[in-house]
């Protein structure tokens, strides 16, 4: 029996999601081809929303293209580019087009991307956006007007994994209280830290899907440590990447070993490769999440 993503969240299945970017332009064949490797293999595909404030095709449009091509998309939606009118219009449109899963987040500041002078919106924050979706799900809009047909989204949110950051933990608690049905996390490299994080949020009844970025080089690991909030690559992994004769392979081995631990700690993994998914299937075989 085919289960959808929401039904899988409610099952005991270990989940695999992955992230894909819409194309930067109208030609989507390369992006669809990249996604096609994962068809029928992973449980859902996150579609980024102008990730890192780099302008791309809308997550709504590419989610629909993926849906038509037989995938189950999770449409990401940030607070950066739309006010509450735009957010609601896009959410209603997405639902009408058949998109059932969404993942909500604040969004990077425009100055991080390729249109640095763009006006940042942030009319709502991610907690308030969750509240907004809850209203649409109950058949009314954010201003309490009745809708001609509401939504019934499977709504997720994101979180960092630092157990020593009380602000992050409190915000996560608010997100769950406001209707987050699943959580996808920042990339996990420090498994001890992730275990402590899971203990710190043990009181929250929400499936947590652990983020995973397969390393490609020592430079990439060091760059993320220096520049990406919430990512902490431990010294042991830095050492392995430094002495690796084939850093790409070593990165996949590290990710595969992490998966074998995350199977015990989380409800699933969320693979965020930098670039294409050409190694994603191999990683899943290495981690024995797929059988040959």
């Amino acid at each position, binding site marked *: 029996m085919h289960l959808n993503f929401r039904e899988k969240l409610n099952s005991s299945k270990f989940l695999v999601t992955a992230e894909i970017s819409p194309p930067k332009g109208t030609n989507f064949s390369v992006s669809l081809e990249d996604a096609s490797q994962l068809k029928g293999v992973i449980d859902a595909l996150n579609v980024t929303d102008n990730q890192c404030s780099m302008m791309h095709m809308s997550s709504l449009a590419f989610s629909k293209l993926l849906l038509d091509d037989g995938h189950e998309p999770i449409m990401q939606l940030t*607070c950066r580019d739309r006010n*509450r009118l735009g957010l609601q219009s896009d959410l209603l449109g997405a639902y009408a087009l058949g998109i059932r899963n969404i993942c909500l*987040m*604040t969004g*990077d*500041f425009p*100055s*991080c991307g390729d249109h640095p002078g763009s006006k*940042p919106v*942030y*009319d*709502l*924050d*991610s*907690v*308030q956006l969750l*509240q907004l979706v809850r209203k649409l799900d109950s058949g009314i809009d954010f201003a309490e007007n009745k809708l001609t047909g509401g939504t019934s989204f499977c709504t997720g949110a*994101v*979180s*960092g994994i630092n157990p020593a950051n*009380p*602000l*992050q933990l*409190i*915000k996560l*608690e*608010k997100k769950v*209280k*406001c209707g987050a049905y699943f959580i996808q996390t*920042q990339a996990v490299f420090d498994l001890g830290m992730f275990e402590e994080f899971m203990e710190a949020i043990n009181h929250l009844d929400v499936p947590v899907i652990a983020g995973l970025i397969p390393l490609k080089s020592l430079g990439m690991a060091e760059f993320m440590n220096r*520049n*990406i*909030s*919430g990512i902490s690559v431990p010294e042991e992994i830095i050492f392995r990447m430094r002495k690796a004769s084939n850093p790409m392979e070593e990165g996949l081995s590290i990710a595969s070993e992490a998966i074998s631990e995350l199977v015990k700690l989380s409800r699933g993994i969320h693979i965020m490769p930098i670039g294409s998914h050409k190694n994603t299937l191999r990683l899943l075989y290495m981690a024995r999440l797929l059988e040959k």
Partner: protein
Amino acid sequence: MIITSAKSFEVILALLKNEDNMFVIGCNVCAAKLRTGGEPEVLEMCRKLEESGKQVVGWALPTAACSIRSFESLVDKNEKIIDACCILVMACGSGVSSVANVVGVPVYGSNDTISLGSLSGGKLISNQCVMCGDCIIGEFGGICPKAQCSKGLLNGPCGGNVDGMCEIDRLKDCAWTLIYERLKKIERLDLLYNIHTPQEHGFK
């Protein structure tokens, strides 16, 4: 306090390129404290304009440029304003608007208005208030996230905080780190659990 910064003299001259016979008005409150429109700056501006070939018919320093009652009150300070063909106001945008409301000649501003901030212990602090008309600053220990968080987030920090610094400016403290420290100091960390609804924007 309204935080202003002085435009460069070259930029001011460009604004005034088609003007002459000007009158300069300073502001003896915020702009004077910030040295963007007090008496020394007004006198310096008059001197430089004249050196650049502009005729300055006179100057005045009202207590607050933003609280000018009438054109007559300006005449009382310096009747030369009657001969002015344009006015350069060395104040915030509110001061410039206030002068423009009572005169009948073109008005220009010599400053850029930055934010509502403060001068505390000799230290200038920008962006302390966005004048939203819906104040809940007490919920955050007196540090307003609408003003001080780059994204104006009301329910906690974004994921961009690195070592307590802001995603968009690694030299600026994350407002939420400051809020946390303040609430901890005053033993009100419980306030962090409140869920805030969005700001209601609209005509004020």
